C-alpha cells in the first residue's frame, strides 16, 4: 500500500540557486549549515534535533534497550510503493520490532552524491518525515556527507534505532521450540518484483508496488495480548527462504512448511513466472514471520488479521525436531524438497 505523500510543501532550498547537491554541502561550512537547517531540521523538526548538539541526549527508559542499524542503498531511489527514505525508516523500526521493542527514536546519516537533484532529496526527506510520523518515532540526530560525482549512486542512507522492551520475553532463535507454529504476516515478493519492474529492460506496465511498511504495531499488539512470542524475523533480502534458513541454523532445528499455504498475489506470481524467479526468495519489506507456541497460533492470527484489509496473516508450517537444521518445503504437488538459503541475488532468466 503506497501512502500518497504530500509534496505541496515546496522545497525550502531555493532550487534556482541550488538545483543539485554540491561538494560544499558536505563541507561543514555555510552551505552545509544551510542545508541542514532549512531542509533536515525543517522536515524532521523536534526538540532534540533543534538543540543542535553533537549528540542527542535522551531520558533513560525503564526496561531493556534494543539497538539496531541498517544502511540503505536501493536503486532506483524512488520506486512504486516507496522510496529509499521511507524504507530507511520502516526498515530500522522493523528491526527493533523484531526483538519485541517499542521503537523510540532514530538517527539518519546521509551520504549524498555530488549532482543529486535537490528536489529528489527533498522528496525523500519528506517521505522520511511521513514515515517517522506513521511509526511515532523521531529522528533525533544525523549526519551529512557529500562524495564526488560517480562515487555514490545518488544517495545512501544509514539509520540506527533505539527501542525499549516492555516485556520480559527473550525473542530470538534460541527461544524457538519443536512444535512451534510459524506464522507469516502477509503475501510475498511484492518489494523485489516492484524494484525489478522499475528497472529498465525488464519493464512491466506499472501496478506492482512494494510492500514497504512498518510492522511494529502488529508486534506490539501481540505483546500487549500477553502472547508468548518465541521469535520474530522480518523478511528482507532473500525473502522467506533466507529468514527461515537463518532461524533454522541459529535454533538448530528443522523447519517444515507447506507451499500451498504460502500467499503470493497473482501479479507477483505472474511476474516471477515470467522472469523465472521463486517468490519464496524474493525480497519483501513489510512482512515478518512469527514463531509462537502452537496453542497460541489461532489467537495470534486473529490479532494480526484484525482490521487488516487484504495482506492476511496465515500459518505456513511448524518447527520440527530433527537436526541437521533444514527448511523443508512440501510442494503443491505433494512431495517435499529443500528450501535452500539463497545464494546471491536471484537473476532473471530466459532458460
Amino acid at each position, binding site marked *: 500500500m503506497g501512502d500518497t505523500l504530500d509534496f505541496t510543501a515546496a522545497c525550502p532550498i531555493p532550487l534556482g540557486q541550488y538545483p543539485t547537491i554540491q561538494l560544499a554541502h558536505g563541507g561543514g561550512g555555510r552551505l552545509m549549515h544551510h542545508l541542514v537547517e532549512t531542509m533536515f531540521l525543517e522536515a524532521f523538526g523536534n526538540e532534540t534535533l533543534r538543540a543542535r548538539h553533537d549528540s542527542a541526549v535522551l531520558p533513560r527508559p525503564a526496561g531493556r534497550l534494543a539497538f539496531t542499524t541498517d544502511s540503505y542503498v536501493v536503486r532506483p531511489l524512488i520506486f512504486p510503493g516507496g522510496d529509499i527514505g521511507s524504507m530507511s525508516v520502516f526498515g530500522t523500526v522493523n528491526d527493533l520490532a523484531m526483538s519485541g521493542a517499542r521503537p523510540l527514536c532514530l538517527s539518519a546519516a546521509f551520504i549524498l552524491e555530488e549532482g543529486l537533484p535537490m528536489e529528489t532529496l527533498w522528496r525523500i526527506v519528506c517521505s522520511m518525515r511521513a514515515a517517522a510520523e506513521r511509526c511515532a518515532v523521531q529522528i533525533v540526530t544525523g549526519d551529512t556527507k557529500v562524495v564526488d560525482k560517480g562515487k555514490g549512486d545518488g544517495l545512501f542512507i544509514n539509520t540506527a534505532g533505539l527501542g525499549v522492551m516492555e516485556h520480559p520475553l527473550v525473542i530470538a532463535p534460541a527461544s524457538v521450540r519443536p512444535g512451534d507454529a510459524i506464522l507469516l504476516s502477509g503475501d510475498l515478493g511484492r518489494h523485489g518484483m516492484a524494484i525489478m519492474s522499475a528497472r529498465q*529492460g*525488464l519493464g512491466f506496465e506499472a501496478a506492482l508496488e512494494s510492500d514497504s511498511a512498518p510492522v511494529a504495531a502488529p508486534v506490539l499488539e501481540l505483546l500487549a495480548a500477553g502472547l508468548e512470542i518465541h521469535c520474530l524475523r522480518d523478511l528482507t533480502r532473500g525473502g522467506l527462504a533466507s529468514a527461515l534458513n537463518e532461524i533454522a541454523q541459529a535454533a538448530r532445528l528443522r523447519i*517444515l512448511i507447506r507451499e500451498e499455504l504460502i500467499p503470493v498475489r*497473482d501479479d507477483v*506470481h*505472474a511476474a516471477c*513466472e515470467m*522472469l*523465472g524467479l521463486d517468490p519464496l526468495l524474493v525480497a519483501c519489506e513489510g512482512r515478518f514471520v512469527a514463531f509462537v507456541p502452537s496453542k497460541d497460533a489461532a489467537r495470534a492470527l486473529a490479532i494480526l488479521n484484525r482490521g487488516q484489509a487484504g495482506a492476511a496473516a496465515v500459518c505456513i508450517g511448524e518447527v520440527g525436531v530433527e537436526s*541437521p537444521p*533444514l527448511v*523443508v518445503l512440501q*510442494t*503443491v*504437488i*505433494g*512431495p*517435499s*524438497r*529443500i528450501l*535452500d538459503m539463497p*545464494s*546471491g541475488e536471484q*537473476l*532473471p*532468466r*530466459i*532458460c
Partner: protein
Amino acid sequence: MKYLDEYRDAETARQLARQIARLATRPWSIMEVCGGQTHSILKFGLDQLLPERITLIHGPGCPVCVTPLELIDQALEIAARPNTIFCSFGDMLRVPGSRADLLSVKAGGGDVRIVYSPLDAVKIALENPGAEVVFFAVGFETTAPATAMAVLQAAHKGVRNFSMLVSHVLVPPAIEALLSSPDCRVRGFLAAGHVCAVMGCAEYEPIAARYHVPIVVTGFEPLDILQGVLMCVGQLEQGRAEVQNQYARAVRLTGNQPARELIHRVFTVVPRKWRGVGEIPRSGLALAEAYAAFDAAGKFGLAARAVQEPAECLSGLVLQGRIKPPECPAFGHRCTPEHPLGATMVSSEGACAAYYRYRAPATVNAV
C-alpha cells in the same frame, strides 16, 4: 495464470503417477532433454512420485551449461572493454570462465546489463550511439528466432554499433550424439517442448526410427512431464518407437513457420563445441555471411583460444546423463553455487544447481 497453474494440480499429478506405476512392468530409463524440465522435476519433486523402476536421466538441454569455455572468455574480454555495453540474459552472469564471470567484470566497472529480450539490446544500441553494444546470443532453437529478429531490426535501422557473440545450439544432433555412444542407457526421451514449438517434431522421426527410441515432445509443468513420462512408458511397454506430441496445446507438428524462416534467413548451421561434451557436427548456429557485420567475434578480432577446464569438474558426465550430480566427488564441497567449478552448478537449470538447491545430502526423501 491460465494455461499454467492448472497443470500443477496435485490430485491429477497423483493420478498420472498411479497410471505410470500401473503401466510400467519393467525398469525404464528416460531422459528429459531440457534443463527447464529438470528444474521442474526437482522443484516439484516429480521424481519422488514415480515408481522406482522409472529412472529419469537429466539431459544436456541447458544452453548456458553447454556454452564453451572459450566463448565465455571471449564474452568476458568484450565486457571488460571501455566504451562497450555488454548485454546478456541473466542466466549467463555467474557462469565461470577461466578466471572470472560477467558479474565480477561488472563489479570491476564493466558495463554489463541484463536484458529480457534481444530486442532490448538493439534499443540500447540506438540509445547509446557512442558505445559498442554487444549481445550474448545464447540459447537453443527456441531463442534463435528472437536473436534473428534483433539482427534484422538492427540491419533495417542501419545500426552500426551493435553486434552479437553467437552461441546458439541445436537439440537433435545432441540427442543423436548421446544415442550413438555405446554405453548410452537412455531408452526413451522427453523432447524439449518449446524447442519443438519453433522447429516442429519432424526432425525427431529419423532419430526415433534409427535408434528405436520413443520420443515424446513434452511441456514443462508437472502434469506435462508426468503425462510425457506416461506416454513414453506406454510406448516402451509396447515396443514402439514413435514421435508423440504431449505438449499439443503449444506445439504443432510443423512448428512455427515464420520463426523457422527467421532462423534460416539469419543463421547457418555449423559444427559447435559443447562444454563438457565435445564438438558435435552441425549442432550450432552462426551468423550467415550477409550478416557478418553483426558478428562480435569478427568485429573485435577475437581469436578462439583453447582453454582447459578444471580437471575436477565432471559436468560433462552430468550433461550426458552418465552420473547424477551427487555422485561427483566435488559436489557440495569444492563445488557449490558460491564457488562453482562448472556451468551446471551455476545455471538456474543446470542439473547440479537443481540438486544442490532442492535436495539436501541424503536426507530429504526421508521426510
